[in-house]
């Protein structure tokens, strides 16, 4: 079989191919079959194309990429812009709940609405409405700092927030996370339930009184790996649970007025221990100074004690 020449190729591929040699007849017939692939009836056009062929215009929306029309802003983009203001106001409100300073923009939001944020920590606010509706008596909303704090606390049950029983100012920023303070979780429902050496019912070495409880020789639980150097500090804060909230409800909102020896006072001592002022030999601050500072526990940066 001879090799195909360029003339043979042109003759075979030509639409008006004449007779070819005998050895190329089969190939020419095959090429005719290939040409036949494009000689059938037109296929059924799609619905969009059929509409165009009938009217000469495209029906329905055309993609902006084809016609260069400007794209409309996406709905998600508009929604993001709308929520941006809400988010800014919320962040400002959260900041104001801690420092007592409300950004101007956020303050405008809350001036126009029923406010639930405190302007001062010691006084309850009465938020009068500027334009009371006729015949509608609006009572001023009284907000206490502890109430706001409990509202902002994610650990506070919603039910407690709703009925007002969660109105407690006793929590400090660092007491709610044992991992951050190195404290161990409570092993008893309250500190009073824990047996400690020196208690009448706790047996000391050599104490053989009947019914005496053996003194704990080791921590109830092994130290957490993440307890760090603070490890054993803050036994008094271990009983931080619902009991504290109940105590706070009973005793009022001023945590500085907690009775000596109460679990709340233990919490304060633990907070100072975490800051380690005693390690430096400095005396503890009087409670009056803490009161003058406002909420000393709230202002304290939890990370400062660790850095020292």
């Amino acid at each position, binding site marked *: 079989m001879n090799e195909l020449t360029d003339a*043979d190729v042109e003759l075979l591929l030509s*639409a008006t191919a004449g007779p070819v040699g005998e050895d190329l007849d089969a190939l020419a017939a095959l090429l005719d079959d290939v040409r036949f692939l*494009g000689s059938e009836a*037109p296929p059924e056009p799609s619905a969009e194309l059929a509409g*165009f062929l009938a009217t*000469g215009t495209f029906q329905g929306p055309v993609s902006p990429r084809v016609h260069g029309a400007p794209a409309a802003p996406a709905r998600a983009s508009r929604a993001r812009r709308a929520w941006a203001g809400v988010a800014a106001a919320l962040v400002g409100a959260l900041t104001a709940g801690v420092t007592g300073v409300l950004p101007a923009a956020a303050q405008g939001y809350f001036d126009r609405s029923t406010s639930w944020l405190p302007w001062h920590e010691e006084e309850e606010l009465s938020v009068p409405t500027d334009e009371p509706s006729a015949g509608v008596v609006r009572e001023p909303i009284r907000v206490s700092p502890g109430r706001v704090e409990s509202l902002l606390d994610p650990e506070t049950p919603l039910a407690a927030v709703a009925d007002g029983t969660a109105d407690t100012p006793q929590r400090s920023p660092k007491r709610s996370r044992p991992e951050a303070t190195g404290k161990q979780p409570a092993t008893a429902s309250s500190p009073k339930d824990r047996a400690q050496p020196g208690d009448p019912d706790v047996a000391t070495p050599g104490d053989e009184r009947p019914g005496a409880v053996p003194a704990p020789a080791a921590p109830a639980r092994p130290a957490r790996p993440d307890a760090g150097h603070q490890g054993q500090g803050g036994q008094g804060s271990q009983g931080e649970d619902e009991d504290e909230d109940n105590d706070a409800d009973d005793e009022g909102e001023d945590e500085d007025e907690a009775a000596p020896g109460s679990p709340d006072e233990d919490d304060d001592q633990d907070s100072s221990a975490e800051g380690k002022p005693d390690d430096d030999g400095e005396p503890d601050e009087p409670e009056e100074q803490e009161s003058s500072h406002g909420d000393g526990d709230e202002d304290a940066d939890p990370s400062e004690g660790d850095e020292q």
Partner: protein
Amino acid sequence: MNHDLDFAAVLSAARSGEPWACTRIWSTYAPLVAGYARSHGSREPEDLTSEVFLSLFRGIGTFTGDESAFRGHLFTIARRRLVDEFRASSRRVIEQAWSESVAHEPTASAEEQALSATSKDRVASILGDLTPDQREVLTLRLVADLTVEQVARATQRSPGAVKALQHRALEALRRRIGPGVPASTSREEKAL
């Protein structure tokens, strides 16, 4: 193209949105595009053809040239759409819902399938033995009736490369259909 009407007149009318002109273009060139798609193993040649002409009519206002250039422009679009389809099909798993009727549908035996095979299937099978480049050049020359230069522009190759590809394609087809053909008759193998 039916040359009863001047191509320029049809093209001008199609640019202005005359339905009859658009229908004329469709009926003249759609079979070629569909055949081109079938020769390349398109899964849905009819849908692809419609997509090609939708693109063609959307941009027909900017086209300038004669009938030969129009044919090259049309098959350039067709080639791009075909490549898009192959790329999409390579990423997509074809799923077919199971149904009772399909499950119990009798299938033809191998003998029945062989007897019912048309020349179209045979052609498709033979073209399938070519390399993709050879098949593309050959179908554009035969089905689309493009010249070497038009094929070169559509496939972004040089005319010399197109000529070499079509030569090798014909040699391969000749070996495929010719019994007892020596294996060392092509230019490629001699060059090696």
